């Protein structure tokens, strides 16, 4: 079994560079004509308000209200409801999609943890695919939160691992190890953010307020697990493939120029479901649960398996453990 090849193009190869790398002719022409087009749209923007349709007028007003809103963390419940209503309406006006954005808070007595069974993972990357679909990841840039590394049997050596393998799996003499955001207890990415656009929720999930992020990418430099992704271009998700079950701090629409990351499928897990990756895994390599619940599977793994975490020396306490059968 191999996973869908469209999901396997790493960001850096697909991320084309204008005027320099592989830009197809039509797109290049479009870009070169961009100046002229920008002029035209500027004229359109200056057109008298009466010339606009009621919908575009409403969309402009909503976009303006969205621009001046505050940080989600400092909003009152009423303000949160208002911005969600605006975002839902904007999605309808601009893309004709009917999305539902939750603001479900952290549940009391819950801190999430993740276990990854190295013995079981076979490198199918069903988790990667599920994540892309569940979290509305940019299809054009082929953004992926999860990275599956193929390593030769023996030691765990990321320097000689391959995360871009394109062949039938499991390959002879190899094993697989997955990474994503480890939701560290002392996240180095959070403290560096100059505007407080990313923070740790009480259930241990580090989230990003996409509308507050200024896109400086300091958090990307600070993450020792390479878990954060940037929207280098306007993200594209075909309307037919859009997951309309969304969360403000999770899989709602992002825009160009902001950072995003794995959020343990906050829209699912806060309602008691598994994250999409854990649910999609056909081999049962992924164990997810509440660390504060003594009867949870993750607690059983932590108590009964030989476990380890990556880069323990950094003392940032990732909540993501590896184990073997």
């Amino acid at each position, binding site marked *: 079994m191999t996973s869908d090849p469209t999901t396997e193009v790493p960001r850096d190869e697909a991320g084309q560079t204008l005027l320099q790398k592989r830009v197809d002719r039509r797109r290049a022409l479009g870009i070169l004509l961009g100046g002229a087009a920008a002029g035209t749209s500027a004229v359109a923007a200056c057109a008298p308000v009466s010339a606009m349709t009621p919908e575009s007028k409403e969309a402009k007003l909503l976009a303006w209200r969205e621009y001046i809103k505050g940080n989600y963390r400092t909003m009152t419940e009423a303000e949160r409801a208002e911005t969600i209503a605006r975002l839902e309406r904007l999605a309808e006006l601009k893309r004709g999609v009917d999305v539902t954005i939750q603001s479900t808070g952290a549940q009391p007595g819950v801190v999430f943890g993740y276990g990854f069974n190295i013995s079981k993972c076979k490198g199918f990357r069903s988790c990667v695919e599920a994540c892309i679909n569940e979290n509305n990841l940019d299809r054009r840039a082929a953004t992926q939160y999860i990275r599956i590394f193929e390593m030769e049997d023996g030691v765990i050596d990321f320097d000689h691992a391959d995360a871009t393998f394109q062949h039938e799996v499991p390959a002879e003499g190899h094993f697989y190890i997955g990474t994503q955001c480890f939701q560290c207890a002392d996240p180095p990415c959070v403290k560096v953010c100059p505007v407080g656009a990313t923070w740790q929720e009480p259930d241990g999930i580090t989230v990003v307020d996409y509308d507050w992020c200024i*896109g400086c990418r300091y958090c990307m430099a600070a993450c020792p697990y390479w878990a954060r992704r940037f929207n280098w271009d306007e993200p594209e998700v075909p309307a037919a493939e859009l997951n309309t079950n969304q969360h403000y701090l999770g899989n709602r629409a992002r825009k160009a120029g*902001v950072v995003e990351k794995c959020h343990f499928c906050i829209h699912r897990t806060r309602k008691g479901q598994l994250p999409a990756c854990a649910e999609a895994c056909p081999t049962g390599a992924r164990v997810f649960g509440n660390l504060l619940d003594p009867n949870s599977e993750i607690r059983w793994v932590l108590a009964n398996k030989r476990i380890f975490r990556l880069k323990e020396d950094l003392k940032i306490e990732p909540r993501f453990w590896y184990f073997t059968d």
Partner: protein
Amino acid sequence: MHLKPFVLTALDSATSGGRRYHVWMGGLTLIMLVGAYAYSLQLRYGLGVTGMNDHVSWGLYISNFTFLVGLAAAAMMLVLPAYILKDVDFGRAVLMAEAVAVAALVMCLAFVVVDIGNPLGGWHLMPGIGFLNWPRSLLAWDVLVLNGYLALNLAIPFYILYSRFSGRQPDKRKYIPWMYIAVMWAVSIHLVTAFLLAGLPARPFWNTALLGPRFLASAFTAGPAFVILLLWFIRRETEYKISEGAFAKLALITTVAAQINLVMLGSELFYKFYSPTHHGINARYLFFGLDGHNALVPWIWTAIALSTVATIALMIHPVRRNPRWLIPACAALFVGIWIEKGIGLVVPGFVPSPLGEIVEYTPSLVELGVTAGIWALGMFVLTVLVRVALPIELGDVRSPYIDERRVTTIVRPRSSRPPRADVRPVRTR
């Protein structure tokens, strides 16, 4: 009072000049326009038009930023002896150095603005209406210290120039305390920028205690070297006389700082390569390449060759004293440190990634265009500031509203130096 004529005179000074001046300014304007067009593409299509990617998430912009912070900081190094130790030789060099600081800061801020993905969200940084994550985020510190430093470097020269323009001696009690603050501030802007990188355990290449001191040493090499180039040009082109003594001292500062810089580079190389650990893998990529990936190798060795040769040359007294050698040596140091402190510092922090993946970085044409545009902007600002400051310093222009009698009978505070030592007599016409 004198403000309107001051502004008008400044505009006049900045816009009038010979043919070569207009060609220079026209050329800079052209490059700025190219940069503006390149930036418009970036605004329209996102940062995807640059060579940056999720692996190398900072590139040419932040590289230039880290270098230019040093240039800005180093200018204050010259202020210290001139105003606080009352070194008269330096007095004339200082205003020029502060113009360099302002131009460098303008470029710094421009490089940060073009690097951020959501510039319209810039107001999120403003305390009060936004949220500045201070004191936890070093980037928040950087925002504060850079803007504060810019304010100081605008205010102090403005006060001095405006006083002279109005026919008054600038009052030392009013500006010297701010000078002290500015000198300490200069050290802080550079240390904060170094800490911004050094504080990330995720990136072992930067995560070293030596990074801050290395930043200072390289800044105090490249900064005075650039000021020497500027003063040499001013001396050649204008009647603003800068003494040999000022050049000698600047050259000495440059030489000493360049030596310290090389010593620190040597310590860093020893630490990374004598007992190579996994933490040295980024340095290995930078200096020798990794698995056939060696985009930065020619750059860093060019930088080291330039710095080493120039430093050795400057250590020989007759060579340092001869402008024919001093000028190319300073240019070599400037370029060498621009590479070492720019691309050679920022990019290898990302290659290989924390998970061992190697993705190399090459700036795109758009990125090069924006970068060239910002450098042109900086040179434009510098030229204007120097053009405005020079005639006032030379006494060629004065406010038309000055009461002539009061100027000649100006009373100096007893505490100030004797009139003989004053290198800036107010020439009245």
